[in-house]
């Protein structure tokens, strides 16, 4: 038994945690009856990969095949995106989709159907899966793809590990000429400006904005958009970049050595941080060359940054609301958040493109994500926010959630009932895939 939690350090559970090296070993572990869930790298924030019995996939991380002619990679589900980047960026390949941390597994990327800054162009991670093998609760293995066992494939992508253990997956990496990004930063004075900016940036491959969610009144929603493209050879100017366009010097991650005391975070310190961040950028639009780590993974540079939230832990509130409701809805919700003064220094805004999938989070519209230290006040606020999000036809991201109730899930995910039926059917038998989250949301019991 060991104490374990996901990234938000809330909740913490006592669990029997073990790994496996082969499909056969996994089959033997699945022969033990009861509820069980896959644990990737614990970068979901809440309880999506927690359970009394957890199977970690990190040792199951081998690359199985790579086709240099078209970038097709087949790897076991425990491989980290960072391992893929370390191996393939120097050879001129990049991930088709990446979230804001590279420290997640391929299995976690599929199960949560993660999105990146290019969602409006390239969709979610799951949309790039050509084929995958999944072990069911009875130990049988299903090879599925968008055309083969298509229904099973559709519930597994975004299915949060409830349909089985993803063993391996095949997807295509994309060609890059350099490890660098041409980045433009645009300063926006308020929410309207930044939304205009998103709508004017649709033909950029990557776009995201950091909002200072403590700015109030006329400057509510003041923010910085970062949009980018993979730098081509011709974009590079510095001789050091030009001579080795695909090589990066490894930087040592800074570490947060211990959990900060809970009082280290208060509106004052957060406000100071926000302000410093905002002023670092000059107004208007600026273009420069940056490397892919700085552009995609700024937070990964600080090892274990989640500890700054102290022992109580934290959660991330991430919702999406449809584009039509966006302006009015986002303004109301953001106003409520800024009034509360409970939010964090990090609020991320992004405009999603269209997505039609069975149970995944993204839909065409605006998504906002920000961290909250766990407190009763924050929990009460979330209830209010839930009601607003649901009213505008939006929903919350399961990969970030640790507290939503079953009613909210059923109301906001159009296929909730069908998903629940499918999971129940797939879980017939002694061993059932279920997380603390899926039990809480009434998907499993």
């Amino acid at each position, binding site marked *: 038994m*060991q104490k374990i939690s996901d990234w938000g350090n809330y909740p913490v559970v006592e669990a*029997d*945690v*073990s*790994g496996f*090296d*082969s499909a056969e070993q996994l089959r033997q572990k699945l022969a033990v009856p009861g509820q069980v869930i896959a644990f990737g790298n614990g970068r979901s924030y809440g309880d999506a990969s927690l359970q009394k019995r957890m199977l970690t996939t990190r*040792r199951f991380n*081998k*690359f*199985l*095949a*790579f086709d240099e002619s078209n970038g097709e990679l087949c790897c076991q589900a425990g491989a980290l995106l960072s391992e893929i980047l370390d*191996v393939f960026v120097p050879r001129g390949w990049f991930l088709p989709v990446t979230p804001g941390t590279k420290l997640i597994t391929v299995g976690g990327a599929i199960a949560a159907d993660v999105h990146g800054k290019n969602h409006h162009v390239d969709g979610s991670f799951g949309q790039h899966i050509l084929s995958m093998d999944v072990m069911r609760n009875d130990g049988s293995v299903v090879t599925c793809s968008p055309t083969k066992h298509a229904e099973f494939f559709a519930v597994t992508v975004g299915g949060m590990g409830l349909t089985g253990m993803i063993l391996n997956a095949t997807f295509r990496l994309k060609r890059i000429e350099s490890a660098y990004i041409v980045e433009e930063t645009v300063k926006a004075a308020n929410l309207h400006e930044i939304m205009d900016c998103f709508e004017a940036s649709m033909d950029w491959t990557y776009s995201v904005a950091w909002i200072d969610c403590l700015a109030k009144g006329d400057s509510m929603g003041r923010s910085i958009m970062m949009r980018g493209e993979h730098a081509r050879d011709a974009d590079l100017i510095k001789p050091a970049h030009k001579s080795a366009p695909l090589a990066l010097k490894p930087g040592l991650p800074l570490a947060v050595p211990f959990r900060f005391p809970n009082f280290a975070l208060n509106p004052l310190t957060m406000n100071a941080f926000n302000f410093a961040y905002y002023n670092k950028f000059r107004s208007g639009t600026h273009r420069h060359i940056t490397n892919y780590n700085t552009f995609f993974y700024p937070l990964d540079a600080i090892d274990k940054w989640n500890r700054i939230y102290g022992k109580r832990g934290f959660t991330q509130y991430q919702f999406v609301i449809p584009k039509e409701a966006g302006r009015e809805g986002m303004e109301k919700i953001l106003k409520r958040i800024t009034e509360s003064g409970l939010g964090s220094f990090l609020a991320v805004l992004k405009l999603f493109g269209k997505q039609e999938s069975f149970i995944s989070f993204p839909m065409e519209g605006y998504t906002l994500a920000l961290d909250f230290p766990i407190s009763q006040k924050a929990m009460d606020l979330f209830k209010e926010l839930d009601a607003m999000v649901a009213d505008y036809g939006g929903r919350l991201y399961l990969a970030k959630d640790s507290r939503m109730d079953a009613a909210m899930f059923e109301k906001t995910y159009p296929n909730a009932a069908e998903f629940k039926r499918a999971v129940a059917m797939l879980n017939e038998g002694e061993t059932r895939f279920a997380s603390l989250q899926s039990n809480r949301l009434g998907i499993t019991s």
Partner: protein
Amino acid sequence: MKNVLILGATSDMAQAIAKKFAAEGWSLSLAALEPEMLETIAADLRIRSSAPVEAYPFNATDFESHAAFYASLKTKPDVVVAAFGYMSDQEKVRNDLADIRRTIDINFTGMATMLSVIADDFEKRGSGAIAAISSVAGDRGRQSNYIYGSAKAGLTVFLSGLRNRLARKGVHVMTVKPGFVRTKMTEGLELPGILTAEPEQVAKAVYKGLEKKRNMVYVLWMWRCIMLMIRHIPEFIFKKMGM
């Protein structure tokens, strides 16, 4: 291109060590008991790097086969890393004859027979390096782990003797005592965070130790101090400590 032979290549530490050598531009000969797992590991390394990788079946406890195994290698190694090992839950199997024998056969006898073959070849050649993974468990017998510990103690003494024999023959022998490492061997055990290394740290320490021709490598510096103290506790006190 230099070649490293890794014995017990399916071990989690060995896998990290193989990646490190591949990244440093070595060619690899991987040897392990379980052919399917070994082939997966070899294929993975071939994708991750441009290093040439050969895979060989190897059983540490098939002592008679060791000379033929070594003769069958397509490339004779410059460096050998012996990582195979076996640890059971002693509280459960204290009096299980088969388990006692297995513990000694894998951790001690298999190491001694295999490394003796290699030592002869290296001595004849007048070059080469041998790194073997022993354990701090072999530094002092503790009630919870003394069967495994004594097999590792045997290995540690064997290695120091081998070092003594080969030092003047241009052959480097290195004893690795990694402390706690997060691998499948220690899965489910409650390990103290700051005293526990990741396999990648072991790999780095082994590679660096070989470069610097160290005799003894502890991965985390704290272990050197801890073991120094533990070795110096008088027996009449130590015996009452029940560690």
